[in-house]
């Protein structure tokens, strides 16, 4: 932990994420115009950033800043649920496949390969398109396309850990495969999974924003960041704040997760390789 906090960029990432969470939680309090999630004020449309509307207003006259804050909730919701689902599907599959390493494992991995062969965003678009624009469909599309990343990672890690002496010793001691997988293998590979999940959260947000941009996300007036960027297109370049605000938000949040993930990787890896000296 200490090492992580010493890493400046990781700290920066952590701060961004904390801010994101706070914004989401306290959106109701922080937003100057909470009703602008749904309300509109046409006379005030497309105003530039000013003292009242920090990031200006959008085409319906709603305050962009407030909408961003509420959009943070959506962002976190989508990211967390989709990534959790992907992890919960991918990790056990990878674990079992890596532990047993037989034809069944090969089958599982080939299935995940099929999913990986298609670019995630294309697949997500296809799914979301079929099911219709709604937040749960976005989450579903993301989970389905994302689980193979974890499966692959966990499979490779499990296979390498499988040959370690302490795993063989646990088996020799009489531990059941389930016990070995969950209590021994999983903690050993946990750091890789954590790092991947952190970065994965960022990636999910990006893809979710892309889906929203394409109109496949939750319908208006939901303040989804990607959709906000899409809406701004016809008013560019004059209403630059309309695209810049959500765009910057997406950028910062994804960067934050990436930085944190990198920092975690640096912090978690060397700890395990440190051995001891002495007879």
């Amino acid at each position, binding site marked *: 932990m200490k090492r992580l906090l010493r890493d400046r960029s990781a700290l920066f990432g952590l701060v961004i994420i904390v801010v994101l969470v706070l914004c989401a939680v306290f959106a109701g309090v922080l937003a100057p115009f909470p009703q602008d999630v749904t309300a509109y004020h046409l006379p005030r449309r497309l105003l530039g950033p000013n003292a009242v509307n920090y990031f200006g207003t959008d085409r319906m006259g709603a305050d962009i800043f407030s909408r961003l804050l509420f959009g943070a909730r959506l962002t976190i919701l989508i990211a967390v649920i989709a990534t959790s689902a992907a992890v919960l599907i991918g990790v056990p599959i990878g674990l079992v496949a890596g532990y047993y390493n037989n034809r069944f494992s090969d089958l599982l991995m080939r299935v995940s390969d099929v999913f990986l062969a298609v670019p995630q965003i294309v697949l997500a678009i296809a799914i979301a398109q079929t099911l219709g624009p709604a937040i749960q469909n976005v989450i579903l599309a993301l989970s389905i396309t994302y689980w193979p990343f974890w499966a692959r990672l966990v499979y490779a890690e499990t296979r390498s850990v499988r040959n370690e002496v*302490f795993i063989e010793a646990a088996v020799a001691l009489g531990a059941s495969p389930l016990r070995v997988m969950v209590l021994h293998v999983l903690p050993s590979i946990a750091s890789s999974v954590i790092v991947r999940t952190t970065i994965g959260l960022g990636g999910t947000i990006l893809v979710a924003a892309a889906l929203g941009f394409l109109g496949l996300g939750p319908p208006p007036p939901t303040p989804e960041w990607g959709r906000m960027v899409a809406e701004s297109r016809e008013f560019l370049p004059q209403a630059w704040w309309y695209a810049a605000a959500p765009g910057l938000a997406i950028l910062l949040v994804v960067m934050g997760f990436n930085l944190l993930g990198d920092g975690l990787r640096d912090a978690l890896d060397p700890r395990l390789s440190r051995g001891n000296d002495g007879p």
Partner: protein
Amino acid sequence: MGALSSRTVEVMSPLLELQDVHTHFPLRDAWGRRTGWLRAVDGVSISVARGEVLGIVGESGCGKTTIGKTIAGIHRPSAGNILFDGHDISRLSPREGRVFRRGLQYCYQDPGASLDPHWRIGRSLAEPLVIHARLSAAERQIRVQNILAAVGLSEGHLSLYPHEISGGQQRRVGLARILMVQPGLVVLDEPTSGLDVSVQAIVLRLFLDLRERFGLTYLFISHDLAVVRLMAQRIAVMYLGRVVELGATEQIFTAPRHPYTQSLLASVPVAGGRRVSTDFVLEGEPPNPANKPTGCAFRTRCKRAEARCAEEEPLLRRLAGGLQVACHFAN
């Protein structure tokens, strides 16, 4: 008799019996097709009496580690039977085997490496009990403390991680873990390999101590002849998967009958004694175990090899005096 093993060996049915055990590993080429077999253990029949220390010696490729792991259930025998306390454990499923394997534990060369680095030592020590025994948490705790004391460690170690203690202490923890389920037989695989000689002495003392205290039987696998001489009452000499000589320790050391055993003993340096490298005569290298010679496996390096040695594989025969030798010329 091993110089320091003073407990008498009980005369009962053997605790462990190997009947013509084979362990073969398939050799595969780059495409995964099987090109042949690595006959790591190629027909071994030995028995270990209750309470004794049987030493298994040999050089790399002789199969001694494989046989240890086969006994412990890490490898499956390709043929033959392994009887533990009268029960055939060679072909049991992992779940069935677990019940019997309680009594039969395998100690790695570095027992410290057998500890999960992410688990605290207390938890690692309790794990065998969680898997095998039906004890309450309090009872487990008591057993852990007892064994911990037996290996010379204190309770303070329980809350530490393996990397926080020294290598020697890790070794003790690894040993303690094996003793948790009160095994009858412990397979010790190269337990002193790589240790400094001063530490080795302490570790060997510990083994003897534990044997006294818990009534253990040891299968002592090592390439270090001097150590085995000290610890074992009987010795089996292995070469390329087979036992070539078997008998009481002192008999083997003072009057070996198999040419390989004779060369092996002649090659061991004795600090302060006769220098072996001035007149050592065993030439060549052990052949590849994937490509064993026909007949007697040692014939490619044996001074006395004749045509018969290539055709007929010598079997272990008991000689007058108790020694068992697998050689056409020993009588």
